[in-house]
């Protein structure tokens, strides 16, 4: 059995195993962790062939005449697959601490849906054509719905409603016709380096098609279709951390980059993406401003995610080889930094039952490890060296400068300042402001050990990615060539 088959089989079997072992929590969590480790190991096996220039393929069956459910591993998908499966291990450790620490209900359903979500995310990562990508894109929306509405409260239901309405709505209204239109004009939906659209396609049609894709991929949270992401924050924090900072949203921007590189091709798009630069630039700045005013920590992080996702869209919209590399790198660097930040938000909630930024005065003294990790994640997002975020931002800035995109440069500079403005006060308050009188009487320490371990791991990863960015670059380099 090929590694690619195992990649899908392992999480599915894992989900079955979790469901069967639901009555014995320790066994159930062991199944989750084992599945995650096995899965990462299997995904890792694909890395060497991909680095060597191979493109492992798997054709499952024909769903419509000429259209297969097919998978093909290329560098971008490899990167996304490694991130999603690798961080799932850390996130599973974290989940154990969080779910038990907060006495959440229906934990078996939670872990089952989580495993299935990862399977869907990997299917998106390795999708060989648009139809396969669309199939699992919708599957990921539906399978994460029970996770978003996990609490079952009215608030969760309302959040779930926004979540579904926007994600299903945009994908049916815009993405589906875009996929069918590509099939209609190109006669194929296979991802091919250099694009598949017929030469000499009307530039107006290309622009409309691009717009359908960009807004149809609602998971990329381009404004005005970003509201589902803050709405999804009603979910338990591990969901926000892995899915709504990594797997789901990265599936969105990954699809954006994938479509631009492998469906349109950079040459086809020359001159057709100015509006996309403007929209993504607007999203970056506007979302940062909203984040600045959000007092709820998870909401602030969510809007920060909206803003950071548009970095990737912006980079892709610059359609220069270097900017595509920057976009791919930013998928990785933002993943590590943002999951760290969500982990810390969950740790603060579990240990101190605090959700608002204004409650965090002096918390650094009680949760030094957690807040140190928070600092690392925040600084990485601002783009401070020696942290991962600096690398990807550098690439994006370089290509913007090379192409003379002054708008893009201005957006990047402004947003860096805004990032600093909404993160630094939290760090300052946590470490340098005194605890409030009320807090003095409610002592607490760090969150449970699994959570602290997890957030320290990802924080360390954020640093490591800066120093060891060469392997990463080697992986995504072929994107620039294609």
């Amino acid at each position, binding site marked *: 059995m090929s590694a690619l088959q195992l990649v899908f089989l392992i999480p599915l079997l894992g989900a079955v195993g979790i469901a069967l072992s639901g009555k014995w929590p320790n066994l159930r969590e062991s199944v989750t962790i084992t599945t995650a480790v096995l899965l990462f190991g299997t995904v890792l096996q694909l890395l060497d062939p991909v680095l060597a220039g191979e493109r492992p393929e798997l054709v499952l069956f024909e769903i419509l005449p000429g259209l297969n*459910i097919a998978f093909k591993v290329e560098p971008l998908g490899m990167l996304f697959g490694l991130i999603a499966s690798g961080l799932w291990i850390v996130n599973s450790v974290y989940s154990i601490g969080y779910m038990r620490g907060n006495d959440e209900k229906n934990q078996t359903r939670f872990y089952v849906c989580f495993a299935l979500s990862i399977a869907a995310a990997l299917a998106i990562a390795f999708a060989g054509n648009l139809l396969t990508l669309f199939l699992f894109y919708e599957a990921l929306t539906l399978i994460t719905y029970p996770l978003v*509405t996990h609490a*079952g409260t009215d608030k969760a239901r309302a959040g779930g409603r926004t979540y579904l309405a926007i994600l*299903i709505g945009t994908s049916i*209204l815009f993405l589906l*016709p875009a996929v*069918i239109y590509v099939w209609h004009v190109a006669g194929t939906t296979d991802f091919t380096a250099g694009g598949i659209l017929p030469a000499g396609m009307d530039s107006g049609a290309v622009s409309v098609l691009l717009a359908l894709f960009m807004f149809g991929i609602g998971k990329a949270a381009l404004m005005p279709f970003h509201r589902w992401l803050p709405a999804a924050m009603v979910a338990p924090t591990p969901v926000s951390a892995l899915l709504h900072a990594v797997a789901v949203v990265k599936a969105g921007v990954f699809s954006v980059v994938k479509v631009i590189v492998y469906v349109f091709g950079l040459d086809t798009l020359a001159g057709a993406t100015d509006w996309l630069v403007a929209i993504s630039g607007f999203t970056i700045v506007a979302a940062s401003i909203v984040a600045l005013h959000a007092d709820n920590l998870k909401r602030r992080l969510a809007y920060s995610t909206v803003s950071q996702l548009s970095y990737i869209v912006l980079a892709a919209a610059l359609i220069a080889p270097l900017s595509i590399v920057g976009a791919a790198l930013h998928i990785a660097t933002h993943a590590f930094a943002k999951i760290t930040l969500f982990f810390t938000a969950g740790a603060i909630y579990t240990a101190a039952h605090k959700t608002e930024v204004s409650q965090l005065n002096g918390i650094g003294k009680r949760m030094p490890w957690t807040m140190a990790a928070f600092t690392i994640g925040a600084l990485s997002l601002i783009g401070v060296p020696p942290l991962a975020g600096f690398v990807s931002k550098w690439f994006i800035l370089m290509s913007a400068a090379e192409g003379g995109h002054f708008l893009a440069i201005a957006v990047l500079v402004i947003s860096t300042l805004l990032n600093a403005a909404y993160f630094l006060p939290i760090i300052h308050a946590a470490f340098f402001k005194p605890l409030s009188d009320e807090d003095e009487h409610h002592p607490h320490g760090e969150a449970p050990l699994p959570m602290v371990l997890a957030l320290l791991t990802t924080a360390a990863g954020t640093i490591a990615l800066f120093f060891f960015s060469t392997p990463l670059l080697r992986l995504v380099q072929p994107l620039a060539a294609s």
Partner: protein
Amino acid sequence: MSSIAAHLPALQVVLPLISAPLAVLLRHGGFAFVIVTAGAWAAFAAAIGLWLQTGETGTISYHIGSWAPPWGIEYRVDRLASFVLLLVSGTAAIVLPYSRASIEREIPRDLHYLYYAMFSLCLAGLLGITITGDAFNIFVFMEISSLSAYVLIALGRDRRALAASFRYLIMGTIGATFIVIGIGFLYLMTGTLNLVDMAERLRGVESSRPVLAALAFITVGVSLKLALFPLHQWLPNAYTYAPSAVTAFLAATATKVSVYVLIRFWFSVFGETLVFEKLPLPQILLLLSLAAMFAASFTAIFQDNLKRLFAYSSVGQIGYITLGMSFDSVNGLDAAILHLFNHGITKAAIFLLIGGMVIGLAKPGAVLPEPTFDRLAGLARRMPLTCFGIVIAGLSLIGVPGTAGFVSKWYLILAAMEKGQFWIVGAILLSSLLAVVYVWRFVEVAYFKPAPEGASKQEAPLSMLIPAWILVIATIWFGLDTSFTVGTATEAALQLVKVGR
């Protein structure tokens, strides 16, 4: 064996037709069940045989009593007919075993034999309409199926079932009268009742007034039967108050066979040149389809009774089928035929599940409650399998990829794009979102509202769950492996649409 294979077209209709009087003669629910179910399964086997035969040797022409057409009655099975025969007999084969537990609570025991007899007659009628190549025969079989359907609906325990059945009877009779008038005109002009013969003789007199009148009468008459908006008024009540098994069977077959009749008359008899080029019929059909897709789906959102909600959804979904027809292209007709099948199995699954749900909701011995939304609160905890089945079938109604509904929508959108009609693409997609709303209304009530105090886990009986879930799995199966559905529908569409006309 080979002699049986040669007579499959006759057996297809005769088997269920004989089991009906046998059921009446025996006057015993249990025996009637066995005989009628056996008849339906045999009919299903015959349909599979015919499907295989048409795949190998092409269209089958069977002469009843060995009288050669156009004098004798011809049974004619092309790819489309074999596909519809499979849908009708397959649905009956699944619904009948389900019936036993279902009607136990819904129909007085001394009437059970009548239920099976009428079911069998209805099945025979629908199969007859599909298989016959004779215009008057279509009318006769249509009456058989309709009259038995009126009885089946009236068997519902709710007194409103009588009114619903009566209304259907009035509308259905008007439709049937129109059809027979139309057929009369055609006979007048051509002197033949054989459809193939008739089609040939119509060439040259297509534009004459009686032929146009015949087209008008037949189109309106059949449109009544297939519940084309705004001639759908009989449908919501009939579906809501009929016994559950009857609703499921009729929803999957009766309107679908009527669609088949319209396709048959338009494409095989009158011809595309007359219907689609000389007359504004495609435009009218397009507008009515769009109206159905929006108005009926929108009405569905506000229904309080789950059965009625999905009944209105049916009217909307029929709009997709007729929309596909209106394009007059291979992909368009392909979409119509596919959706006829895909929507048939999806809706049958939903109504079967609702039937089980109603029984699970009822207190022992009490009258069955209506599945209104206030009774569905927290139902997912009490009936997880039933609710999850409805969610999956609901996804197929929306057209989520991986379900059967997606496949038909794909072809429908492709057909609209081929015509360059991008605003219709937008309309199809927008109306799909209405389906999201009404399906999710159920999801939110069943999964998020707290269940009433003291409600225990109470699934429907297995003999009802299993048939329903066979259909639920079929909606996923035909969303992933489409070689059977798309293959057959495309062959059928190619036979009907004259390529490059």
